């Protein structure tokens, strides 16, 4: 009976895990595929540790006013390693969230962020997907891209339509 139980347990364990692994694998692949694009289409990318999160309230936005009101979330982060942009110890950046999207999923911990600079030289998250998990394979890819930029094997997309920080992609400022 015990042997039967063990067989059932092993069967369930092995029959379930590949599917879950598959899901995780595809998520990891999706994130890995985004690293290069994120770095090349923004102004600053670094591995950071979020140390402070401050909800600043509703941002002034001439087009939104009370409709689709934006909430500004200000992050203060320690920089662990930078891949693009000025070397610095800490950074402040903002995330603009529509009220209806809620504040329950704010960023925490260690992650890779790619940021744009606005007219006032403030950093902000340009869109969804500019945050990546701090997984080894992603960090390695980011380091490689940093080297390739330095060696001029890769160039930033500042002049093409994919650049995330140009006004027509930012929307009203």
């Amino acid at each position, binding site marked *: 009976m015990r042997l039967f139980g063990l067989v059932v347990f092993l069967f369930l364990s092995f029959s379930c895990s590949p599917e879950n692994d598959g899901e995780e694998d595809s*998520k990891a692949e999706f994130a890995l595929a985004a690293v290069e694009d994120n770095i090349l289409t923004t102004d600053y990318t670094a591995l950071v540790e979020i140390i402070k999160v401050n909800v600043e309230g509703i*941002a002034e936005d001439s087009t939104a006013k009370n409709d689709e009101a934006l909430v500004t979330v200000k992050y203060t982060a320690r920089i662990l390693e930078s891949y693009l942009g000025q070397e610095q110890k800490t950074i402040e950046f903002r995330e*603009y969230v529509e009220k209806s999207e809620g504040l329950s999923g704010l960023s925490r911990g260690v992650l890779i962020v790619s940021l744009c600079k606005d007219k006032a030289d403030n950093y902000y998250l340009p869109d969804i997907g500019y945050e990546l998990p701090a997984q080894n394979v992603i960090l390695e890819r980011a380091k490689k891209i940093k080297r390739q930029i330095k060696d001029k094997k890769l160039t930033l997309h500042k002049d093409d339509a994919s650049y995330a920080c140009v006004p027509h992609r930012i929307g009203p400022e």
Partner: protein
Amino acid sequence: MTRIAIQHGSSILEIRKANPGIKDLSQIAVGQMLIIPRPAQQRPTFGGGKRPTYGRENPKVCGLLTYTSHILRLFNSSFGWDLDDFLPTAWLPTVNDKHTKNAPWMKMALGEIGVSEKKGMHKANPRILKYFKASKFWGKDDSGGKNAWCGSFVAWVMQENKIKPVEKAYRAKEWKNFGNKINEPVYGAIGIKSRKGGGHVAFIVGKSKDGKKYFMLGGNQQDKVQISEYPKKVWDTFVFPPNHDATKGELPVHSEKGEKAGRED
């Protein structure tokens, strides 16, 4: 139909009983009304008590007059049931065969109304994770701005209809690069609005009588898939899927009666 039953905590048997006029439940058409009995544990007791409410807890957030999936309250006296014995049915725009023929993906999009986020951090509705997969997004949590899933929802609808979504479909603004741009939106077109740090994307299903408002079916609208009313001016771009002819389409006008019926204030 199974999905509708599950979404509303009902069963096919109960829905069949409540809709004797519909011979084949698998053949319901877009725009057709359906009575969905509320699960027994949600039925109010007679003789007092607060009447249960449906839909949004905060109907005015973002200034959007939002249509939840539960709107029309129907009463069928022939069964002797009280009005409150029924869940309001899903509000669906009145469309004709021409609309659905020109935008066949809308059938699937309408079928997703009611899919909502799972509350709490690091949790996600498995359905929304399927949307993420369609857009190749790596998120594991369906809440918050960084996991906004409107683009992923549109990607899933397109993919299920054998239409290749745009690259980086999880970003709303990327949908500007999809298919063909159109000047005048038609039923089923994809609308995009931009803002600093993001944007929103949804399917258009109609306009108000005065033409100043659009009715948009989208994901992540009050944390769920639903039809919401937006000012026309906030939508900067409309696109139509490749290999589909937008010139044959039109945009239904929703009557004043329909708008009022849709509100859950």
